[in-house]
């Protein structure tokens, strides 16, 4: 299995074996590539994106496991759980994004300049955007009970989000960052992550759905069974939207034995400068 995986790795490429997932209730995305199979790869049937369709982990519908202290165990390799193509895919059927006119205009502008999407330049994807590649919850135990939760990503900038679990509040004065300032707690079996302090630079999705520094997100992660993790995100940004709204995405557990692979976006990135595209961050 390892040798097969190893043979698929190219220096700047990812070789995990799942198609992108944007499984909200808005219906399947046309560009999402979740459609029918189009052949077989070495590890299974291949979807429209040319990637092997995910193998379901055995026992996926059993109740979620717990840690010795009773906390729900979020451990596992997950894929999905956030927008990839379009955050609107996470809305309920019939709903649309309540974009303010200026935000809509910016989004339209971005649709003509797809190469400005910061992640193509190896900039962070922020919250709640996800990739078609795995991530993991890292429950950091210390001598003081778990004080931090980290979410470690394989894709994008191959970094981590830091969630403070020690009861602290957001700082009064926020330094705008790509991932914001996150505080988390458990509401029964749901991990609730409240984040503010975002910069306005990342795009919510490939469509370029925008936001401002007023963005406030509340993620509610619930492991409904062994194989499924639901993320219900409330987006509250009066600078870009006329009202708060909620989107829901599901993450799927990967086959046991799979691990996060190393991926270094900026190593041999042919899309950006090397690909002849103007760097939107070069002033």
């Amino acid at each position: 299995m390892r040798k097969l995986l190893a043979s698929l790795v190219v220096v700047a490429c990812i070789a995990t074996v799942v198609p992108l997932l944007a499984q909200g209730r808005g219906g399947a995305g046309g560009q999402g590539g979740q459609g029918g199979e189009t052949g077989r790869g070495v590890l299974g049937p291949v979807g429209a994106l040319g990637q092997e369709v995910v193998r379901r982990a055995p026992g996926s519908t059993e109740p979620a496991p717990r840690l010795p202290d009773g906390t729900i165990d979020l451990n596992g390799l997950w894929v999905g759980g956030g927008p990839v193509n379009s955050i609107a895919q996470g809305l309920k059927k019939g709903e649309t994004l309540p974009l303010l006119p200026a935000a809509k205009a910016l989004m339209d502008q971005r649709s003509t300049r797809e190469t400005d999407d910061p992640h193509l330049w190896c900039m962070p994807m922020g919250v709640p955007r996800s990739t078609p590649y795995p991530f993991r919850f890292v429950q950091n135990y210390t001598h003081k009970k778990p004080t931090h939760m980290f979410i470690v990503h394989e894709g994008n900038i191959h970094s981590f989000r830091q969630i403070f679990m020690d009861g602290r509040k957001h700082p009064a004065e926020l330094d705008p960052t790509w991932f914001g300032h996150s505080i988390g707690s458990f509401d029964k079996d749901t991990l609730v992550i409240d984040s503010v302090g975002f910069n306005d630079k990342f795009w919510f999705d490939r469509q370029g759905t925008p936001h401002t520094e007023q963005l406030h997100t509340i993620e509610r992660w619930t492991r409904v069974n062994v194989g499924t993790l639901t993320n219900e995100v409330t987006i509250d940004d009066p600078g870009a939207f006329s009202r708060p709204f909620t989107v829901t995405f599901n993450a799927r557990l990967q086959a046991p034995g799979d691990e996060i692979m190393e991926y270094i976006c900026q190593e041999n990135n042919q899309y950006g400068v090397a690909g002849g595209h103007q760097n939107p961050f070069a002033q």
Partner: protein
Amino acid sequence: MNRLIAAAVALGGLACLLHARPLAQERVQFIVPGTPQISAVDAIKPVPRLPDGKVDLTGPWVGGGSNADIERDGGLKPGELPLLPWAQTLRESRKEENEPYTTCLPMSVPRVNPYPWKIAMTYTGKGLSHIYILHETGDAGAHRVVYMDGRGHPADPVPTWWGHSVGWFEDDTLVIDTVGYNDRFWFDSRGTPHTDQLHTIERFTRLNFGTLVNEFTLDDPGAFSRPVYLTFTATHIRPDLDLMEFICLEDNQYGIAGGFAPAQPDR
């Protein structure tokens, strides 16, 4: 004052006991301006433990690895690092501004720049199955995983910047064994090289609340004439502080923008 002397003596004695090989003449610890460090009073408090009795290695820490010069930072005298002739020549030809990190590529092991890092001991339903070492360097090398579940290395690892790490405890010392490195990162800003035959063993021991010692074995027959033993010391940062966000690639004026070409793999 007496307590400090006693603590220093105890520290020195313990450090001697930990060495099964020749003690480095000097343990160099670079003091980093800018990252507030733990106070001397708090530093000598006892080693904290997790509920299951394991030593708590979390940190965050600053220092504890190489930075400008692995030979000096690791406690050796100038010239003591047993580089093979070709590697010595390569080191001399390298310029600081060409190192991969200037284009935000990872620094890897045992490099620590003057920014905090932490050892996140990850408990799951199966106990301590993973340890994530998290660096503030962000996109330029944010996380490294150490598998603590007893697995071995793959027979033919894919060369990566961070390698494949497996770890275990020997009493209160965390031992991390790593192979499968690529040969692209520099051990220090002066350009000390290695090959993909590199095999490292890190032995982390927390001496007291504020001090973490890294006894480092560098075993690379492709670039060194024999295994090398180095010692690095990390200091806990001020305990109320955390890792900050750092995105190296954002507005990186040093690399391409500064007119420096990214380093090509050199031979």
